[in-house]
């Protein structure tokens, strides 16, 4: 409970900080030192293809051999709708062994790609838990979130019906996309869609912040007292 509050506080600080910096830079009419950074976190069970998707997106590379990930970090510049932004991808471990450290990672995420394998019903079931954990940590129903059904190239081995996936996406009110890290089908789409959501979400937030400065100030004072 407390941690959630503190985090909220801290994120507010951060945004404020950034805003002032942005403002300062804008005022000095200098080009931004760093493009906007969007933090994407890959979640999902082990072996569904999180790392494969990431590497395909980052390096156009399909890795055949499976090596369980602990926590990988990638960051590169992309052009999103004509604007240069940076995408930071945190590729997390799917294995339950690392479940305890997930919370920490999730906190820093701005958008989530919740991946499962359409050939593995268990991984589809697990998306439920991930969703819950993310919502708990972020405490935000509208956090940018995409449900991704990977391994669409293995259509003949499909064991999760498309309807069930769509139904769940509908339930969560998130987009559902099927990808293939192997054929690079929809890979760019999921990342760019997610980034667009993050961007729109940020602009919403900043408008809200700008629109209600007082509330922010009050909060800030409160924090200082603490």
């Amino acid at each position, binding site marked *: 409970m*407390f*941690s959630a509050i503190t985090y909220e506080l801290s994120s507010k600080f*951060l945004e404020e900080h950034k805003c002032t910096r942005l403002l300062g830079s804008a005022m000095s009419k200098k080009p931004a030192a760093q493009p906007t950074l969007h933090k994407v976190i890959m979640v999902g069970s082990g072996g569904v293809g999180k790392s494969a998707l990431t590497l395909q997106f*980052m390096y156009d590379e399909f890795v055949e051999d499976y090596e369980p990930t602990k926590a*990988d*970090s990638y960051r590169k510049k992309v052009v999103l709708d004509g604007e240069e932004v940076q995408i930071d991808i945190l590729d997390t471990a799917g294995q339950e062994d690392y479940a305890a450290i997930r*919370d*920490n990672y999730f*906190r820093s995420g701005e958008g989530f790609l919740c991946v499962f394998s359409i050939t593995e019903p268990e991984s589809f079931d697990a998306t439920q838990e991930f969703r819950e954990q993310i919502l708990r940590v972020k405490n935000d129903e509208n956090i940018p979130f995409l449900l991704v059904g990977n391994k669409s190239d293995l259509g003949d081995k499909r064991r999760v019906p498309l309807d069930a996936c769509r139904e769940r996406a509908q339930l969560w009110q998130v987009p559902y996309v099927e990808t293939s890290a192997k054929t690079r089908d929809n890979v760019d789409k999921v990342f760019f869609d997610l980034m667009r959501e993050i961007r729109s979400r940020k602009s919403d937030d900043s408008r809200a912040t700008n629109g209600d400065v007082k509330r922010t100030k009050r909060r800030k004072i409160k924090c200082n007292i*603490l």
Partner: protein
Amino acid sequence: MGPPPVVTGISPKEGPPGTRVTIRGEFLGTTATDLIGLKICGCECLLSAEWKSKNKIVARSGPCKGRGDIIVTTKSGGEGTSTVQFRGYHESIGPVKESAVWVEEAAPPSLPWGRRPMSPTAYTPPDPLGLSTEGDDCKFPEEELHELFPDSSGKLCDENFQPGWYLLEHHSNTSFEDLKAGMVFLQRKVEGQKEGQLSFLKANTGAVMDQLDRLVLLKNMYEDDQRKNGKEPLPSLQAAIEESITLADSLFSEILSRKENADKTREALSLLTRHKFLFQLPASIDKNIRKKEYDLVVNDYTRVKNLFGNTDVKLFQKILDEIDKKIEDLKENLHTRMKTMPINVQEQTKYIRLLISLNWEGDAAWIAITTRKDYLMNLLIKVKDHFKQKEEQELGDKSRRKAKEGEGEGSWSAVRAGACAAASGALAAELHALWPLARRYFAGELAGAPADPQRHADLKEMITSAVQLFSTHVRACVLSGGAAAGADTLRARLLANLRSLREAYESLLKLDLPSQPLSVVEKIIFDYRVHGMTVFLQRAHKRVKGLVDKETWKIQEFSEYGAITDLPHLLETYLIDALSSIHKCVFTSGRRETALLIEGSEPLNILQKHTQQILLAFVSVLQELALQHDDQDFNNTSLSVALDQPLVAGGAGGAGGAGGAGEARARSWQQRLLIAAANAAYARRVTLPRVAAAFDSFEFPTPVLALQTTKDALSNLESSIAETYLEHKGDPLVGTIEPSMYMGRHKIDPDAIVDDARPYVYEIINNLIAVHAEVDSICGAACSRYVSDICETVCEEVSRLVASAPPPARAPAFRARLEATLLRLATAAHLTRKAENYLAETIASIPPLETEEEKKRMDTLIQDFKKRMELQLASLNCNMETV
């Protein structure tokens, strides 16, 4: 200069030192060598970096702590940048924490008295909020703290302490109620410190008083002490301490020294057990050498060289020296063994391998080869000497025993045969050993140094010289002259020698030796075969020559060419004997041998020459036999004897078919002459074709020239014999005619009535009968030649005599006519045309009969003569068969 490297991905993004990190990005180097630097969190990790592609490097993180960039430096792009960061942390490992590395569980060696230095840095002040942090596993991400509170610290003692950081770091999970309680606690503490000294004193009056009392007491005691021990208590204290130290030392020195000894002993023992192998090696080497387990020795030696070869320890070096010495001895020993002959190849190979594996400085295999060769040479010489000695000894014995037989068997003796077999065996066996050895040597199988190309030539030289030596010895042994032994021994020895030679040759063939030595051996065999052939032929020659003494004049058979003795048959037998021996023993060629009798080859010439010699020898034997007449015998023979003898002998000859040797020996030389002629004729007509047939049957080329020469020689001989015979037979006969014609009643009354021929006519007839009988008894159907020849001479003589004294009177004329007619009548069967002419001329020269009466008388006389001489005439005209 290409674009600088950019690291955009790291997997994993954090980990303890030594984590395998996959670094991804762009322009991370064009090749593995292009990558010249890799820093993770400031630690150089190039050493562990594994360049995979220009987008990927795999490395291990260094001993870094905290977050840091990953900086890749390439030759082509220079120093790069990183968009991601790696965080290194040190894992604290404890009893409950799983760890990939094994942790020493024993306590670290503690200092005496358990003094443990307390690092001031390790001191962490207790929680100011007085809250337990247990179960606070969820850590707040450090990087976020850094982001939230730049230039601040979460440490209580730091100047830039940020309470927010501290709280987030330590109490991010603490509930709000607990925090409030902590706040209260902290406030109370602060309050407590604020209240001042007075209140503090008031609150603790009793304790303060107590402290004062104590201080006074302490002071008093100190002063007492000073009084007692003087101003400087330290020296005495020091002395006491030193005393106690010495005492303690003395107390413990013994124990300590004992412990030290024990330690040393233990150390030595452990050293011994650890290097047991080394220490026991000299003994085990000795043992193994005794057991001949050289492989073990070599293995051990190699092992010990690997393990302790570079040791600096004196003791080890000493032992190594000892071992080296033993190995040197062993090498020497092996070398000697390898060189000691005889030895089989396997063993020798084993020694060679051992020597090579012991790094012996010589070329072991080559030495083995040369040794073997020397041994072979020596062996051959030894064999030769041994057998020579043996032979001499035997010869000595023999000459002592039987001086007459001192000749010995020469090249055919058993000793020589033995020598030949031994030498062949030795050559075959040793080359069998030497050649494979050499082949393996040159094939590099003996693991030696690659062979000098010169050595190939050397080896060839060696083998050739060995074979040459062998050939010289065998030649000396087998091909040198010597009296021929009996046929059977001869054949047996020849075959035995040939067999041993061939066996050797066979085995050399199997070895695939170069052609040069092989041809040498083959040459020996060939020469030996030729030698054998020559020997057989010479033997036949000798035997044929010896026929002179063998002639018994015993008539063996009446052929159509007259009566013959054993001679032609013996000739045939001897020749066929020799030929069959040759055929059996030497004609057949072994594998890869030259055929003996090739057209135009030396052996064929020899064969032809010898055949001719043998046949000519036979001819000369016949000649000798025929024409060798004791002059004595002949000279003593008076005319009458000469004339009488044939009758007697003829009678004997008639019965001679079954006659004894004594009888035969008594033959007159005229008879011998005739027999020889018959033999010659038989030999010419029958034996020679048979010999030719024999040559054919043995598949030898027919010696046409020899046969032809012999044929000519034989016909010459025949004619010369015939001449001789005539000379000796006809001359006396003719010589008797004139005296007996004029004997007594030569000068008869011209008118006297002639009622009979003069006795000389009867004499002539009788003589002719004698000759006819003799010739016929010997020559049979062929006799007419001799008889008619004699008749011719007789007729010639009579004609001459009648012509020289033409009878003037009637009576002598009548008588002469009568005589001529009678003679003509008697010899009618044997008259040649010439003789006929002579007689006709004689009759014509005599005046013809004038009266009928005379004619009638003549007829009567002739009829009378016919009647009277019926038996004589018949005997003159018949021959053996009709009788």
